[in-house]
């Protein structure tokens, strides 16, 4: 094999490994940044893996009425503070209260709203 052909193969190999090396976050982590950064706080990271150990899907997606489509719920901080969405649990009783800004607003600057495919996909329609 000529050196250039080998170089190409190595190039292809590296390209194959890219998704592994650049996999972001844990599978199903949700980034919420429709307003956060624009209003001076870090993007929100919602970990599905953490919550599904404690709650079945329908608690959030039926009882609390959170639509299963990232970005389709207009979650605003004032409605959360008033006990909707995250605030239904993060009230100082079921879970720690909304005063702990950093625990939710924990993302790096510049993240876009979306769901993370972690090990495999980038979410529905992206694979």
């Amino acid at each position, binding site marked *: 094999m000529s050196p250039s052909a080998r170089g190409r193969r190595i190039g292809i190999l590296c390209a194959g490994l890219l998704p592994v090396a650049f996999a972001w976050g844990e*599978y199903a982590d949700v980034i919420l940044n429709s307003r956060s950064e624009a209003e001076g706080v870090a993007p929100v990271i919602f970990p599905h*893996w953490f919550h599904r150990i404690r709650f079945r899907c*329908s608690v959030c997606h039926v009882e609390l009425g959170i639509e299963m489509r990232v970005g389709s719920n207009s979650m605003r901080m004032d409605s959360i503070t008033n006990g909707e969405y995250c605030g239904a649990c993060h009230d100082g009783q079921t879970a720690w209260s909304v005063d702990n800004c950093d625990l939710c607003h924990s993302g790096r600057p510049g993240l876009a709203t979306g769901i993370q495919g972690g090990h495999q996909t980038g979410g529905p329609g992206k*694979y």
Partner: protein
Amino acid sequence: MRQKPALVLLTTLLLTLAAGIAAGNWKTLRNDQLHDPSNPSLRVLQDPEEALALLPPDTAGNMVNWVTALQRGIISPRSSLREDREHEILDDDVLMLDTMPLPYVRFPHRPHSEWMGCETCHEKLFVSVAGANAINMGKILDGQYCGVCHGAVAFPLTECNRCHNTDSSTVSGARPGGTLP
């Protein structure tokens, strides 16, 4: 001899993948390229590995077999915020035959209804009549029907054989949308 470098590369690739799978491959929050490492609260948040390494392993998604974890009672997520009532479980399978050339899809109600109430799917995502939903693979890959959850939160769509799980020769007299006990 000409194929040797390619073989070595292939082996390396497979070993890398295998190692990734064996190790669970969970990133720490500090290195996941999502969390801001300068946020002091990262010390308080849990790294995925701390929780997920204790659950039955799998090879895709969160690398956790969530169905087994729930069925064995290793985790017991709440069904409701109001009162901890047990929700309804439906124990039948719906057979979907329009899958050529792949094996049939046998949709199992039991693991789904163990994980979520009926209203999560009915009647918004699926009409509860066998065969009444115009599902196809293109729509699923586009994030509709099964693809609302699979590929986002439940195991990813690259796991063809978990849905295309029923060899057509093992089902006799099957009719489209027929249900199986």
